[in-house]
């Protein structure tokens, strides 16, 4: 049964708490993009994807698959995976520690359930997702493939190679997404490179394009519904999520400065106070 918006909000709040606790324990990591994509990934794993953590295998047969192309967003990724049942929530405390399955960027070498492919060198995950989608088509597997890219990541040429490939091979089982928060590590995207109008660009590439609010669960649910309706159209779908880096904590929101920075202890305390506690409980 689908979760209500209220239930999703509670989970997303807990995931934002996890993100902050994880990066503060590890004293490293990327909270900004993790917090801008928290709501969309919460909805994806708790309401939208057809997946079963209990029967997960790397080949993803018969299930929907997800690739985190923006591999630095591991805090949100790992928290969503743990909270949806792929591994114990307590393991989130090992993030970025020596020997941990929760590597700084996703690894397939630690047998961490839920992770289909290594990522982190930007621009590559969408190509891998294209391969997954093509493999599913060859096998007549009804599963969908989701992939999340950063907006700064769109500066990589390979993203556009994959964009052309997906249209040419009619990958209508592929739903790519861009976390369009307008920020990257060196500053606002329009001051670093000028990625411009992503919507016009993906439309010109021949994709179905959906632009949606990334922090409103009504908008998120509708966007996923519309995206999934693309199956059978012969076209891949791109959801451009209009989001806010660091969303949920006032002093972290809307600035590139929290892309890869860790709050100080007093900032963590204040951030957790703003988010509020949930019945789900923090990482022990």
């Amino acid at each position, binding site marked *: 049964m689908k979760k209500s918006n209220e239930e999703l909000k509670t989970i997303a709040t807990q995931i934002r708490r996890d993100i902050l606790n994880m990066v503060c324990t590890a004293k490293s990591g990327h909270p900004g993009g993790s917090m801008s994509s928290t709501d969309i990934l919460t909805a994806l794993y708790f309401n939208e994807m057809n997946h079963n953590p209990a029967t997960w295998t*790397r*080949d993803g*047969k018969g299930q929907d698959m997800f690739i985190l192309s923006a591999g630095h967003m591991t805090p949100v990724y790992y928290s969503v995976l743990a909270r949806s049942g792929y591994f114990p929530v307590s393991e989130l405390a090992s993030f970025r520690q020596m020997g941990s399955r929760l590597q700084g960027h996703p690894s397939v070498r630690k047998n961490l359930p839920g992770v289909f*492919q290594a990522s982190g060198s930007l621009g590559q995950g*969408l*190509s891998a997702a294209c391969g997954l989608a093509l493999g599913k088509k060859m096998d007549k597997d009804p599963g969908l493939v989701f992939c999340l890219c950063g907006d700064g990541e769109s500066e990589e040429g*390979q993203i556009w190679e*994959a964009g052309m490939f997906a249209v040419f*091979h009619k990958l209508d089982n592929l739903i790519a997404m861009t976390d369009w928060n307008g920020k990257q590590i060196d500053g606002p995207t329009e001051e670093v490179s000028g990625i411009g109008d992503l919507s016009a660009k993906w439309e010109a590439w021949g994709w179905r394009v959906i632009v949606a609010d990334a922090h409103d669960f009504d908008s998120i649910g509708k966007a996923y519904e519309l995206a999934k309706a693309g199956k059978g159209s012969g076209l891949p779908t791109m959801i451009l999520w209009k989001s806010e880096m660091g969303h949920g904590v006032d002093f972290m929101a809307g600035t590139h400065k929290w892309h890869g920075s860790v709050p100080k202890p007093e900032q963590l305390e204040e951030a957790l106070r703003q988010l509020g506690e949930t019945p789900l409980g923090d990482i022990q």
Partner: protein
Amino acid sequence: MKKYIDTGKKDTRSGFGEGLLKAGEANPNVVALTADLKGSLKMDAFAAKFPERFVQCGIAESNMVGAAAGLAITGKIPFIGSFAEFVTGRVYDQIRQEVAYGQTNVKIASSHAGITLGEDGATHQTMEDLALMRALPGMVVLNPCDYNQTVQATLAAAAYNGPVYLRFGRPSVPNFTPADQPFVIGKAIVLNEGKHVTLIATGHTVWESLLAAEALEAEGIEADVLDIATIKPLDEETILASVKKTGAVVVAEEHNMAGGLGEAVAGLLAREFPAPVVFVNGQDKFGQSGTPSALMAAYGLDAQHIAEAARKAVARK
């Protein structure tokens, strides 16, 4: 010395084409991808027979590597094919992340390798690919020497579970290994046995080394000739057994010194059994336009240079 008969010159890339077709017939999971070089890679027969398993990627090698990794995750056995430079140097990071670190069962079919690519010149003549691929943890690196061996190496690559770099070339060269000789990954092939010097060769320099061994025999120098069709993992046992017998070594390869077979062998000998080694390779240079045979001679990679290197190695004992 043992006689080898050239049954007719053929290009090793056509051996790949035949091997790919056979691998595709044997296993429905084998798929092939190319970046607008289907004809050059001799993938036409596979593409005609299995159109639904052939994936044209256009001139976009980076995406091809990632797409192949994705296909491998779903259980396919993808062969990606392009010129050696464009499936190594151009996409080194993609191979490192998606294939090697990502542990995907992708086979990198690398054609037109080395200086014998010929007339297109240095932009297309990679002499650095072995160094790049050897450096990747877990990557198997194959460099067969003739048509027949390339057919078998392709089948072995398809049967092996894990990333493989399969290097072959453009020019027609003598075809002399048995058509039915199974390819064993990690095993060197002893083509000739002698007691004075060990000639260690790979790819196109194997035939040149056999010619050199013939010339040396006439001078009373008897050579072991080792065909190193697998550069990684290196068959250390066979190499050490030979060098312990001969005490002098030549390593010949169509590749630059840095990171090539020569350094792999030198590293082994430094660790286990120091012996004089003379290197026959592209040194530290880029190539240029020319015919394959003229380039092999000009860059010191042919039989004459290998024989001269052997004389030097023997003199240093």
